[in-house]
């Protein structure tokens, strides 16, 4: 049994993370690149359920492999390899260790056959990804703490859902949770938080752009996409997801239009893209689910590519605001070209990966007769080109010359960008081999005259709108308030007000309390002997009271530390 567990795909990366914490030099590079390759191999060795074990009343299945888990496992292992190559020169050991552990935990979620294993790896991801953010230094500390708190909240919600589900059904298997499944809404809420769904999506653009030039590449791949994976497995066809997904798609566009920082633009566009996937899962036909799964696959590639391109600019110039960049195409040809490949792919240009994946979601909406959803998806696609497809390359590499002439980044970073560019184009040019491994049984033909012409019109006229409206899109040195204002400003302000009031009330009532305490102690002594406190309570009730008191204490504590 233990041998089987060691051969779990997650094992290679978790072991690799352990090794990375002690080895240096060539050995470090070997582990950084070797562990993901072994993980990829193990992804394809795994088949069926393995290593079942019993823990208390639970029957756990730590490893379960099928087409869906292998699909996500493949792209996760590849992303870990490409991100490792990009980070080959990264000096922070903590970032490399945490990144590989984070990727390993993501593989753990993908191959989890039961909800308890899933939860364990889910929490491990939260901790490892926080360490990736924190490893970037003191400027990332506060954002990393906010990120951790939001994810611990999400993890707690998920834990309550899973515990409730188990208590009600006695089952911990990780399969589709139908409309009648107990606690499915609580589980859904916990998963959606990691997907970047409203109302708490602000954790993503708040924290990811604080990571290092290479850290954000890693972060973009795993957390939101494991959430997509869990939604695919547990909530296919949940109608609410269509509207949550569409909201995310438009939220990402509008906030990215207003944003000045290139990596925050790309962070908002993660929410936008995951929105398309979530909407596809909500539509729920096999074609739509294939669309969501394949779009997640393609998205991990082109978003990593875009963030590598932005990371190269950040590493070579130390800048990330659009207002301080521009004209870099003259001295960074590789970075510019790869950035444009990523931009075309995210925009779903014909002959790129985005085109052969996103079309499945739109077509599935049309086939189901969801005309409004189809129209909104088309408007969203136009908006993607606007906020990411042109805006990112235009303001960073072109627009007016900033006078900066940084060279392309060192060879490993260039190699990583080229490596990821290849499948972005390859999948778009030759989709059939890619389609052959799709997790659900629904065929699709992306290239028809009408499809291609329609998409070209949509995108090129979006481009026309961009250049005609350039005056309205001029970048300003601003941020846009989001729901995180509640816990970054309102909460701390309320807590700060509350402290003196509590202190004043306390000192006034202290003497009264001391007097009352004497009497109270007598009463307490009595009730211990024969009164209500002598009764045995259910340990559950006592635990609940203790949890409530501790939670209240924590909330006040967090809010006053949040600033």
């Amino acid at each position, binding site marked *: 049994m233990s041998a089987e567990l060691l051969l779990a795909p997650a094992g290679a990366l978790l072991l690799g993370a352990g090794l990375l914490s002690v080895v240096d030099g060539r050995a470090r590079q070997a582990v950084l690149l070797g562990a993901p390759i072994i993980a990829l191999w193990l992804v394809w060795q795994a088949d069926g359920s393995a290593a079942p074990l019993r823990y208390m009343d639970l029957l756990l299945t730590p490893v379960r492999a099928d087409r869906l888990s292998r699909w996500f496992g493949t792209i996760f292992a590849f992303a870990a390899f490409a991100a490792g190559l990009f980070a080959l020169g990264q000096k922070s050991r903590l970032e490399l260790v945490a990144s590989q552990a984070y990727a390993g935990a993501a593989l753990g979620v993908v191959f989890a056959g039961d909800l308890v294993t899933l939860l364990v790896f889910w929490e491990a991801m939260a901790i490892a990804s926080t360490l990736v953010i924190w490893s970037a230094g003191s400027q990332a500390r506060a954002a990393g703490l906010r990120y951790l708190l939001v994810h611990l909240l999400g993890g707690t919600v998920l834990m309550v859902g899973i515990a409730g589900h188990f208590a009600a059904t006695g089952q911990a298997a990780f399969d589709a949770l139908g409309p009648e499944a107990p606690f499915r809404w609580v589980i859904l809420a916990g998963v959606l938080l990691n997907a970047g769904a409203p109302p708490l999506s602000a954790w993503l653009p708040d924290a990811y752009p604080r990571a290092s030039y290479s850290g954000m590449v890693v972060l973009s791949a795993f957390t939101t996409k494991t959430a997509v994976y869990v939604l695919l497995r547990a909530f296919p066809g949940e109608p609410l997801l269509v509207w949550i997904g569409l909201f995310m798609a438009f939220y990402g566009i509008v906030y990215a239009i207003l944003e000045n920082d290139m990596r925050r633009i790309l962070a908002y566009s993660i929410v936008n893209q995951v929105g398309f996937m979530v909407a596809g899962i909500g539509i729920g036909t096999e074609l739509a689910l294939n669309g969501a799964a394949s779009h997640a696959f393609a998205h991990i590639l082109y978003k990593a590519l875009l963030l590598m391109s932005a990371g190269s600019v950040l590493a070579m110039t130390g800048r990330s605001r659009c207002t301080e960049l521009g004209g870099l195409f003259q001295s960074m040809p590789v970075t510019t070209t790869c950035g444009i490949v990523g931009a075309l792919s995210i925009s779903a240009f014909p002959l790129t990966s985005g085109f052969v994946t996103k079309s499945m979601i739109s077509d599935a909406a049309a086939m189901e007769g969801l005309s409004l959803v189809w129209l909104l998806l088309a*408007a969203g696609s136009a908006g993607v080109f606007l906020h990411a497809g042109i805006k990112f390359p235009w303001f960073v590499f072109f627009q007016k*010359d900033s006078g900066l002439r940084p060279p392309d980044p060192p060879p490993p970073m260039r190699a990583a960008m080229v490596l990821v560019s290849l499948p972005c184009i390859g999948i778009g040019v030759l989709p059939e081999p890619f389609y052959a491994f799709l997790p659900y049984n629904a065929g699709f033909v992306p290239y028809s005259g009408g499809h291609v*012409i329609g998409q070209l019109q949509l995108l090129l*006229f979006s481009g026309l709108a961009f250049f005609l409206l350039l005056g309205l899109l001029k970048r300003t040195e601003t941020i846009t308030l989001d729901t995180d204002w509640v816990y970054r400003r309102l909460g701390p302000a309320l807590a700060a007000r509350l402290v003196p009031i509590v202190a004043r009330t306390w000192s006034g009532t202290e003497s009264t309390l001391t007097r009352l305490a004497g009497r109270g102690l007598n009463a307490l002594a009595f009730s211990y002997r024969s009164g209500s406190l002598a009764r045995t309570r259910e340990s559950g009730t006592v635990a609940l009271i203790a949890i409530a008191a501790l939670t209240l204490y924590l909330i006040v504590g967090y809010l006053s530390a949040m600033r």
Partner: protein
Amino acid sequence: MTPHWISRPEAIRRLWIAFGLILAATVLAELATHRHAAIGIDAVFGFHAWFGFGACVALVLLARLLGFALKRRDDFYER
């Protein structure tokens, strides 16, 4: 330093002309392709062109509107 050829005014004018020709070509190509409408309204001639353009204008205006209410200096939380 000398500006790159691509940022000279005459080059920009030529790029705009080329862009306009490509735009026209993508719309005219619709006449030559057989297409079946996905939901009905997209059978209207040049649907994707005007819909894409209109969607972008609407999104930019929506963003501007939201910006008036929610934009702050980028050191808002640091102050």
